[in-house]
């Protein structure tokens, strides 16, 4: 049964049950707006006055919680590559002989490679996540996880928790500062990670909520991104992780001449298409050409004295600088990309922390990505129908993340993908790509060093950019030329088993990932 982008999605998938296949960006949302579905009930726990939530350590906390086989545990990934919480907790649970856990982390990074052994030994049998990298990604691709993993977007995760698709038994929320009642934040402390946007929905819906911190502060901890009224226990540990590893190199503007050239072309296209104007809103990625676009757009805004309305998304210091310079009125932050950004949350009332629900959930009373004017995103691969892959590598292994890609691409009025046409010897623009995360109908422009490709559905952009002096190229020509230059590559070989599904933000399945042939 082919879905709306032509991928065969079985009605039923072993280990997942019946699934709905992707029918279009807004198909399920349109259907849902007239239905009267209830949200997943929130569990009521009552702690009397004086109840001591503070545990001695993780072991003590696990003793107090209701822990059993087959439960769903959740985490956030705000510490990104520097996370130091997920692995110790899984380890502690494994040491108690707990099995068949469903791991629901907002995403997983290189810091989570040690989880491979817990996947292999059956401690973890299900994973809900936005992404997976390195050896963990390879393990999932090799079929080591008992049940198919589900890759969701940031907005999709909020939806999944709210509708009960993911029923969290225990949510472990690491925070760089917390008080003994469980009010917690990531905006200050030695391990400051900024926004705790991904964790907020877990705090509301999980059956039990644990705050883990390396910095217990005097009551009351403010700001309270996580509130005491939702927290069962607080656990002090030595370190929740390494804040220096949150960003890696991602928040410096690249010096790579190719990326700069692509960014420059993209910025000029966005400007010439008349999207940079007073009161507009903007989001871009955290590195490479995507972040560099912000620099060129900033120059233009300063030149023309344009003030935007808001910045959204993953917030980097490039953006907080723009906020400080009053180029935008607000910055709405669901994920802070370097610890310098955390300071801005504390000091600048215009820098606002938001939940993943407010950010990008399509199944609520409207989310912020739907208010975006312009978004600039990266890609691992793009096909000639403008479908984008940000999850699976050319060798068939899972190595990226869905993130906010399909959320912002669907919501923004102008979606621009920036990427070189080739990376090393690997084509990025191809006739057919390995896996689709964002459908081509959400993508308006693709900018590579070869020029600007306009989605044929956007006749208005074709008109606006026609006499711009910018190089406009046909995406099919780019794919053909790239294939000629690189030569025909051996496509990865897969077995029939489905090891993971790519869930679109509305819960439908847009693509499946099969087991890599060893």
């Amino acid at each position, binding site marked *: 049964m082919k879905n709306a982008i032509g991928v065969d999605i079985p009605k039923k998938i072993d280990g997942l049950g019946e699934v709905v296949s992707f029918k279009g960006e807004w198909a399920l949302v349109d259907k849902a707006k007239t239905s009267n579905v209830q949200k997943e009930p929130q569990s009521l726990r009552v702690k009397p006055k004086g109840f001591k939530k503070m545990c001695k350590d993780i072991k003590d906390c696990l003793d107090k919680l209701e822990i059993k086989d087959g439960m769903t545990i959740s985490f956030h990934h705000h510490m990104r590559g520097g996370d130091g919480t997920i692995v110790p907790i899984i380890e502690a649970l494994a040491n108690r002989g707990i099995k068949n856990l469903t791991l629901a982390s907002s995403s997983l990074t290189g810091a989570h490679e040690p989880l491979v052994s817990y996947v292999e030994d059956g401690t973890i049998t299900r994973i809900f996540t936005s992404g997976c990298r390195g050896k963990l990604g390879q393990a999932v691709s090799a079929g080591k996880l008992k049940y198919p993993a589900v890759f969701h977007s940031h907005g999709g995760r909020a939806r999944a928790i709210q509708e009960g698709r993911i029923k969290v038994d225990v949510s472990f929320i690491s925070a760089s500062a917390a008080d003994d009642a469980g009010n917690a934040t990531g905006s200050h402390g030695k391990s400051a990670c900024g926004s705790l946007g991904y964790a907020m929905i877990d705090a509301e819906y999980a059956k039990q909520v644990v705050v883990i911190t390396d910095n217990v502060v005097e009551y009351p901890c403010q700001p309270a991104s996580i509130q005491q009224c939702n927290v069962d226990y607080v656990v002090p540990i030595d370190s929740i992780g390494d804040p220096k590893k949150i960003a890696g190199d991602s928040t410096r503007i690249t010096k790579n001449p190719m990326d*700069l050239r692509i960014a420059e072309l993209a910025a000029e296209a966005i400007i010439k298409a008349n999207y940079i104007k007073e009161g507009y809103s903007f989001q871009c990625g955290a590195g490479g050409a995507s972040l560099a676009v912000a620099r060129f757009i900033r120059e233009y805004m300063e030149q023309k004295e344009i003030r935007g309305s808001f910045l959204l998304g993953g917030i980097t210091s490039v953006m907080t600088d723009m906020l400080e310079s009053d180029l935008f009125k607000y910055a709405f932050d669901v994920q802070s990309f370097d610890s310098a950004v955390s300071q801005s949350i504390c000091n600048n009332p215009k820098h606002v922390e938001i939940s993943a629900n407010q950010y990008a959930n399509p199944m609520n009373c409207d989310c912020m990505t739907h208010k975006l004017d312009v978004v600039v995103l990266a890609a691992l691969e793009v096909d000639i129908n403008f479908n984008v892959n940000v999850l699976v590598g050319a060798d068939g292994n899972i190595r990226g993340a869905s993130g906010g890609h399909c959320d912002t691409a669907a919501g923004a009025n102008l979606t621009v993908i920036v990427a070189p046409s080739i990376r090393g010897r690997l084509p990025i623009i191809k006739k057919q790509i390995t896996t689709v995360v964002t459908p081509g109908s959400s993508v308006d422009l693709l900018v590579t060093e070869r020029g600007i490709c306009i989605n044929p559905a956007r006749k208005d952009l074709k008109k606006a950019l026609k006499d711009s002096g910018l190089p406009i190229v046909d995406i099919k020509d780019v794919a053909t030329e790239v294939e000629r230059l690189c030569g025909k590559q051996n496509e990865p070989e897969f077995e029939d088993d489905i090891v993971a599904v790519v869930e679109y933000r509305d819960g439908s399945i847009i693509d499946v990932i099969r087991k890599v042939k060893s």
Partner: protein
Amino acid sequence: MSAKLTRTMLYIPGNNPAMVQNGGAYGADAILLDLEDAVAVNRKIDARVLVRNIMNFVNFGDVEVTVRINGLDTEFAIDDLKEIVPQKPDAIRIPKINSADDVKKIDQIITEIEKEHGIKVGSTKIHAMIETAIGVENAFEIATSSKRISALTIGGQDLTADMKVVKTEAGEEISYARRRIVMAAKAAGLAAIDTVYADVDNEAGLIRETEMIKGLGYDGKAVINPRQIKPIHNVYMPTDDAIEKARVIIEAFVKAKKEGVGVFAINGKMVDAPVVARAQRVLELAGIEIGGQ
């Protein structure tokens, strides 16, 4: 569009595959694939073979592709020509041209290679690089020594070395050479390309120097780092006012042409051929195409 724009000519080390294959990607009007100064002596063969292969395989689009071979005084020049000419570069940059004789020697070698490969004789152009005192003094003679010469370029570094003076930011020491070379180029109807600005971190200095050489009549400038490209293009960008005026002239020109009228007027003033040509140039620099010209 008429004559190709050469506002920027990006120098690319010939032995670096990533940079050579992406040469057309940086937005420069022209590229110089360098087999000479950017390549170590014991890697000359590697660079020559690499540039030859990549030129044969990669499509550089609208970018003007030039190759700088090694000087005639080296053991490499002839083999460079033998391998590169058949790849039909837009021009071969010959370093250290001192006289018309130097050009004539090369002219002959290129002619033989063209004949051998069934290439139209004379189609391979030469950019003469003048980087010695004697070369400067012989500038016009060099400019008119062969129909192949399509541009004169100045090599500031080697020139100041030859003159045994220090190269300075203000450039007084090469001021005469700059003026002499651009004049010879204009007199012979050739393009003129200025020397590199080495301080890649000094954008303000680059802009100052580009404004100066543009004022002298240079069509463009050598570039050693892609981030120098945009500032130079900005200097060459006509003002909005100039673009508007040019647009009016060309639209009237196109209209007159359609009506079969040879001569036309704007606001009561006659518009003759040199004015139209200047207006066309302005629109080219602005990247605006008007059909029907």
